[in-house]
């Protein structure tokens, strides 16, 4: 299986490490204990989607440029649909 790293080009998947579902967004956490929503934190830390089909996942090119990526992958066929830098993919996301 090949993953097209935006920096390094097509590289074998063995060079990468997978972290899992890229969906959850880190909730807001103010420095004091006000406004921190425990339910949102449980969802962020423990709830992961595990679909059959297209899935967005965090991968890191550990054996290469070490960039964190968001890889869109079909879990049934392992077809990689798209790869983008996590830096770009997560920028400007609203926290849940």
């Amino acid at each position, binding site marked *: *299986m090949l993953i097209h790293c935006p920096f390094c080009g097509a590289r074998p998947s063995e060079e990468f490490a997978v972290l899992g579902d890229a969906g959850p967004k880190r*909730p807001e956490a103010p420095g004091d204990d006000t406004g921190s929503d425990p339910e949102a934190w449980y969802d962020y830390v423990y709830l992961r989607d595990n679909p059959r089909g297209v899935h967005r996942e*965090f991968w*890191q090119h550990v054996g290469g440029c*070490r960039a*964190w990526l968001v890889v869109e992958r079909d879990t049934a*066929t*392992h077809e990689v649909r798209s790869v983008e830098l*996590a*830096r770009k993919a997560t920028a400007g996301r609203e926290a849940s």
Partner: protein
Amino acid sequence: MSGYRLDSGGRIDRSRRLDFTFDGEAFGGHPGDTLASALTANGVRLLGRSFKYHRPRGLLTDGPAEPNALVELRGGARLEPNSRATTVELYDGLEAWSQNAWPSRNFDVGAVNQLLSPFLPAGFYYKTFMWPAAFWERVYEPLIRRAAGLGRGTHAPDPDSYEKGNLHCDLLVVGAGPSGLIAALAAARAGLRVILADDQPEPGGQLLSRATPLGEEGPLTWRDRVLAELETAPNVRLLSRTTVFGWYDGNLFGALERVADHLPVPPEHLPRLIYWRIQAKRALLCAGAEERPLVFGGNDRPGVLLASAGQTLVNRYGVAPGRKVAVFTNGDSGYQVARDLQAAGVPLACVIDARAEGPADHGLDCRVRQQTVVADAKGGRSLKAIEIVDRGQGRRIPLECDTLLMSGGWNPILHLTCHRGTKPVWDEEIAAFLPADVGTGLRVAGAAAGHMTTAACFQSALAAVTEICEDLGRKAPEVALPACPEEPCAVAPLWWVKEAKGKAFVDFQNDVTTKDIPLAVAEGYSSVELMKRYTTLGMATDQGKLSNVNGLAILAEVTGRPIPQVGTTTYRPAYTPVPLGALAGPHVGAEYRPVRRSPLHRWMLRQGAEMIEAGAWMRPSHYPRGEEDWFAAMCREVRGVRSRVGLCDVSTLGKIDIQGADAAEFLNRVYCNGWKTLPVGKARYGLMLREDGFVMDDGTTSRLGEQHYLMTTTTANAGPVMAHLEFCLQSLWPDLDVQVASVTDQWGQVALAGPQARKVLQRILDDLDVSNDAFPFLAAAETTVLGGLPARLFRISFSGELAYEIAVPADYSEELADALLRYGADFGILPYGGEALSTLRIEKGHPAGGELDGRTTAQDLGLGKMLSGKKDYIGRAMSRREAFEAPDRPVLVGLKPLSRGAKLRAGAHLLTPGETPAVESDQGFVASVAYSPILESWIGLAFLKRGRERLGEEITIYDPLREGLYRGQICDPVFVDPDHERLHA
């Protein structure tokens, strides 16, 4: 004695003789022979005994699907069981042994199973060996394994070497028969990068087994011309003796190249096998088709073989399969085989065609019977006669012959197309499964796609290459096709000759007969997957290559369902067995994985260190003197550090350089404690949590400049912490102006610990003032040592002593360590290893691996006060969960045995005295232990419920696997210097 070498013909070198032995008996053959063809040429027919009934068995096929002719090849450490004689190329001095026969294949005691066969139906093992359960592992399994088996393996280390490699191409062509050759030629002319892989020693596929000309010339003349063009094309790579065994995600193919299996011993410079991973933009499967056996009584008698195998023997190896050969067919292809045998002068007895009508002009001199079937084959170790049934007249007729060739139709070899989960599709016309459309990555052409004439094969291959060229933006070239012969290929299914009286085998390798399938259905196993497992049809080395379609067709008939509804079992990789050595490649023994060595590795060896593996690292355990064991050496080293001074390699700790305007803010977010107030020139202990609130790692981080920090991690977590920081920076907070880089390998680092540490240190420093006031505990500085050598100095301590860590560029580590030994000599300096380091930190109550096991919280470790209340950080929200604050969570305490000499063991559980050991009464566990030469007692760090309220209490230590029950006393986890006077001295 039936087969013999023909006077001429075949692709063998008759000018050279190769000597070989089978079961110790000497024979001769020629280069170009397989073990199977050479044995047949020598009249050897009985090749082994069957799996369950120990029936005599001979050759059945001419290729990798062979279920009967399995031999043990070579010997000693190179012993290779279950080698298919049909794929073993003959070499001089080859030694082979038959399998599953004792004392010999001619007289096999196990053959008594044939008499017992009424008691050995499908599922016999499941029904018989059920009681008592205690016998399963110790009695039944060894018994069954000895009685019913394939070859024996060897336990000796493999003397051969293996390689792994990656290949890339535009088009991978699997199979170099007529379809594969023409496809590779067209693709080569289109300018594609082509790999043509074929499992035989020479390309040609079916052309090697046929005599019929292509156009005006012999089939191999055409092949040679194509090959000449392919061999000189710079964009084509030919892989012979290479089986493409699996199709994987992303159009990756696994292939096994047998580099040296045709030689007695691999030459010194060559591996035995290469495991290739072929990344192909497109692939074309041209694997051909496999002939099906016919199912009738005694169809396993030695001398009954596939028609295609007989044809290959005659045309490729110049061997007559027998002296009086009958052919039993349900289609037109059997006639061509008979014609080839007739042309080679092999005496034919009869052609028996199950169909009412065969081809009109068959060109055969022997008798041809229509609407006739073979009901039973007679003979023991060799076929003697057959009984045929003329279905038109309803007569049973005996017929003498010593060989019977059977042709039951053709199964496309489509296994690769199923490896990613697609099922094949039933086709009525050829009465076989065709590959399903599996997308543009892997197309199928030729006989593998169900095309049964050479002309159709050529056309399908060119059509596929045209599509592939379109996919890849190339223009498909013109390729001239040779004129192909007329090849009638009609077939009428014949699944099961019901007139049979004797055992009719569906699966030869597993001894599954026509009686077993109805039995499986009657007992409820009517799904094809269940029937397979109950009867074992389609298992073992041939994986049902021959038996699968016959078996499920019979299952369809028995259950009254159409074949497509019955479906097939799942074809998984590998197509043929792959030796584990090839998959491991060179990664065995010391090369199993890379070894990490400290820059002080050689220095430590010179000091006499005993090295041990710690993850990927080699680290010193202890530095024995004289006859000291590890325990004595550890005690001496600990006393040396506590009373004088010692030095220890700490280069393996993770070192991460952190720079940028937001570096302090970044540290604030990844550590649970605060970093905004740390001044330049200071170090601080940091505790890092996971987002779920548990402790991930700890270490010190020093501020080297306004925007420059150096973080240290534990050795084990260096990689994960680095990846975590990168994740935080790139995914969570991409707006932070921070860069991180691992500098673990760039710096060699030494800890200098003990009351005399400062005095030794002063002697190597160029000009830094390290008096207690100028350089107090947790000071950090960039400086120079030994006359200008750049160094980093940190006053931090793992042992609890007055201690420093000194880092220099990795290449200068040995100079630093030598200088410390030299200048420390008159203070009694000594190097200490991991055992002493561990004792020192346990004496001081510092948590390490045993305590930071991913299940402990800051509160558990007594570090709850470090959790900042003024900021957000990774793990903050979850570390405030109710359960984390629960009063009965086990927390870190110290532990001593009540009787001084008693040994503590990590992993033991703690109980309130008087309580019965049970999960409910469990009070905690022992995490780390050491013998403290300072306290002259074993000590331990443990986690205990309400531990901090129980200091001084007695506790029961429960260790049922080792010492049983004994008593201990709870104490503060800091055993040595609880007021930290030494640290600040």
